[in-house]
Each structure stands twice: as structure tokens, then as C-alpha cells.
């Protein structure tokens, strides 16, 4: 029997996101003769109960999103709450959840709290937690789609995808995987900081504008 898997992308950048690339990479572990994959891009906070119902028709959910301020991006949090409501209102089999979270920080461990948030969400929604994958320096992955998975600098990520792929194929609950980048921290810092300076110049600003301190002077609601 073909197993139905929902690939859920919670990045507001949709197709251009690292989360989309990550979902494509994990899909490589799921042969199409055994798995029917459906893709959902949840880019905005406008939740749709029909889409939530469609997602919950799948027996396995693979959820990917970027870490925002140590947690779930706010628009995606609204979708998680809608999925919880939909699940509570319906009877029957509940899906197993696997999560792939990437952060802009070097250390994959900085995704630890968001994986706990997702576990708590699963408990409230009656979903079974499968496994989490925490990915450091996630921002680089979108630009490495020409690199075969398993080759530098996607060597450790390739190994992790292999481990999670096995968990998904067995619908097992397994310990979370923390994927550190293949390159040293200092290299990541230098490349990232060079990138910000290149962007600011391309936007017609001066390098010193990167450090701008803005005095607060606006009334808020």
C-alpha cells in the first residue's frame, strides 16, 4: 500500500526557501513507488480549514520551517493551532510528525526549544511525535542545490537525512538529530558578515549604515 506523506513548508519564502530545499532532500529517501508525497506551502497567516483537513488526511507529516526568534514563525504558529483544532474535531487515525528546522545560527542546538514546542503541539493535537532534525547554518542550504547530498558541504546533512529517512520509512519515534555544518564556525561568520555588507552596498547604503541606531519616535497602537 502506498503511504501518504504531506510535505509542509512553513517558510514565508515558499519555493525560494531553505525549508523547500530541505523537504526536497528528505524526499530523496522516500521511493515514489511506496510513498505518495503532497506538498503544502503555508506562507501566510490566513489559515484555511480545508487545507488543514487535507494535510491531516496524510499518515505522515514532514514539517520544515526556519527558526524565528527561538520559535515557530508567527504565521506558521497560526497554522499549527488550526491543525490542532482540526485534529481535535475529527476522529480516526492521527499522523506521525517529523520536523526539520533550520536556523541561521551555526549551532544546530539552537533549535532545541522549538523542537520542544513542536512536541508540545503534537501532545495537544494527539499526533505522534516521530523525530526532529535541527540544522545549523540553514541559510546556506538553498544555495547548494547543485551539490549532491552526502558530498561536502552537505556531508553531515546527507548522513542525517539517511537516518531520518529510515525513521520515516519505519514510522518510528527516534531521538532528535542535530546537524552541525561541515565547515568551521569562523568561515560561516566571515561569509555571512561579508554577505550583509555586500547587500547593504547593493541597496545603495554605506557600510556604516549596518550599525545604525534608530531613535524611537513613533506611536504604536
Amino acid at each position, binding site marked *: 500500500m502506498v503511504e501518504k506523506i504531506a510535505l509542509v513548508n512553513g*517558510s*514565508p*519564502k515558499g519555493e525560494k*526557501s531553505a525549508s523547500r530545499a530541505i523537504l526536497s532532500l528528505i524526499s530523496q529517501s522516500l521511493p515514489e513507488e511506496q510513498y505518495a508525497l503532497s506538498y503544502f506551502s503555508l506562507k*501566510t*497567516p490566513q489559515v484555511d480549514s480545508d487545507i488543514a483537513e487535507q494535510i491531516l488526511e496524510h499518515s505522515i507529516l514532514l514539517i520544515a520551517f*526556519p527558526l*524565528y*526568534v*527561538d*520559535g*515557530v*514563525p*508567527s*504565521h506558521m*504558529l*497560526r497554522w*499549527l*493551532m488550526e491543525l490542532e483544532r482540526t485534529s481535535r474535531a475529527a476522529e480516526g487515525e492521527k499522523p506521525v510528525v517529523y520536523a526539520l528546522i533550520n536556523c541561521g*545560527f*551555526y*549551532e544546530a*542546538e*539552537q533549535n*532545541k*526549544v522549538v523542537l*520542544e*514546542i*513542536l*512536541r*508540545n*503541539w503534537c*501532545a*495537544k493535537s494527539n499526533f505522534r511525535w516521530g523525530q526532529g532534525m535541527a540544522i545549523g547554518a540553514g541559510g546556506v542550504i538553498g544555495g547548494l542545490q547543485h551539490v549532491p547530498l552526502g558530498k561536502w558541504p552537505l556531508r553531515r546533512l546527507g548522513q542525517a537525512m539517511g537516518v531520518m529517512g529510515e525513521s520515516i520509512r519505519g514510522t518510528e519515534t527516534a531521538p532528535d538529530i542535530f546537524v552541525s555544518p561541515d565547515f568551521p*564556525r569562523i568561515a560561516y*561568520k566571515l561569509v*555571512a*558578515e561579508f554577505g*550583509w555588507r555586500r*547587500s*547593504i552596498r547593493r*541597496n545603495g*547604503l554605506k557600510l556604516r*549604515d*549596518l*550599525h*545604525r*541606531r*534608530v*531613535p*524611537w*519616535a*513613533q506611536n*504604536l*497602537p
Partner: protein
Amino acid sequence: MIVLIHDLQGDQAERLVAGYGKDTVVVSDDGSIKHCLGCFGCWTKEPGACIIKDKYSSMGSLLGACRELHIVSECVYGGFSPFIKNVLDRSISYVHPDFRMREGKTHHRLRYDRPFQIYAWFYGEALTGNEQKTARELLVANSINMGCPVAEVHFLEDVAGLEVTV
């Protein structure tokens, strides 16, 4: 200055805000907030301000000017409610895009000199022990990222029991 970010509505919001003085800027939910697009325009197009133009685009500079941040939020899965999280997502211009090591990990360099203290009140019925544990860990992570200490964390079953007098 105190910045109060809350997700309460109606009488509950009024009662909460009544406990604060004139030195408080209240950030509340009028339904108009837009979500963060992850564009980093607040670092490279208009450094220090969100380029999405709504009432919440100056959150970074507001945090840079305050001495206390008070957050009153429903506890959702051990995190903030969508509105509070939306405000925080729109506040990342408070930090600088460059990296610095703090507590053994990379975090963003701070844009402003003066740190504020964080006070948080999480409310919600039947909060589990795991959710409370996660919420405490989340605040510690936020505190390290923003370079600001956590002064107080409270959990309430019923937000009607919340009284803050400043």
C-alpha cells in the same frame, strides 16, 4: 520607559493597561499586524526598522529605548501566542546581523548599548508541566539572543487574576 506587549482584548486589556503609568508604551493587537517575511530588509535596506510599513515597523528601536519589556501572552505549546510572536518576529532589527559569541554559541551582535529587563506573564488553562518548562527555556534563549536578563516569569491559569502595578 516600559514596553508592554500583550494579547488581551476588551475589559481584560483595559484592566491590565490601567496598572501602568505614563512611562509605558503599550503594544496591543488591533488585528492589523503583518507577518515577518524573512527578507532581512531591517538589516540591509532600512537598518534598524522593519520595511513592512504598518504600526509595528519600529519595534526594534522601541526595544532599544526601553528599560523593561513586559510580555503578557497566552502560553501556546510552551511558546508565545501568535500575536506576541508576530511582534517579536518583527523586532529583530533590535539586534545587528553580525555574529558574536555569547554563552559559547553564536548570537547576533547587539545594536543598542542599553539592555532591558524581561518580565513575562504566561496564561492559559491546563498548561502542562512540559509547556511551562519549554516557556522558561524559551525565555532564557530569548534573553541570550537579545542580551537582556529575564527578571520575572509567571504562569497563570486565569488571566482575570493578573494584576500588574507599576
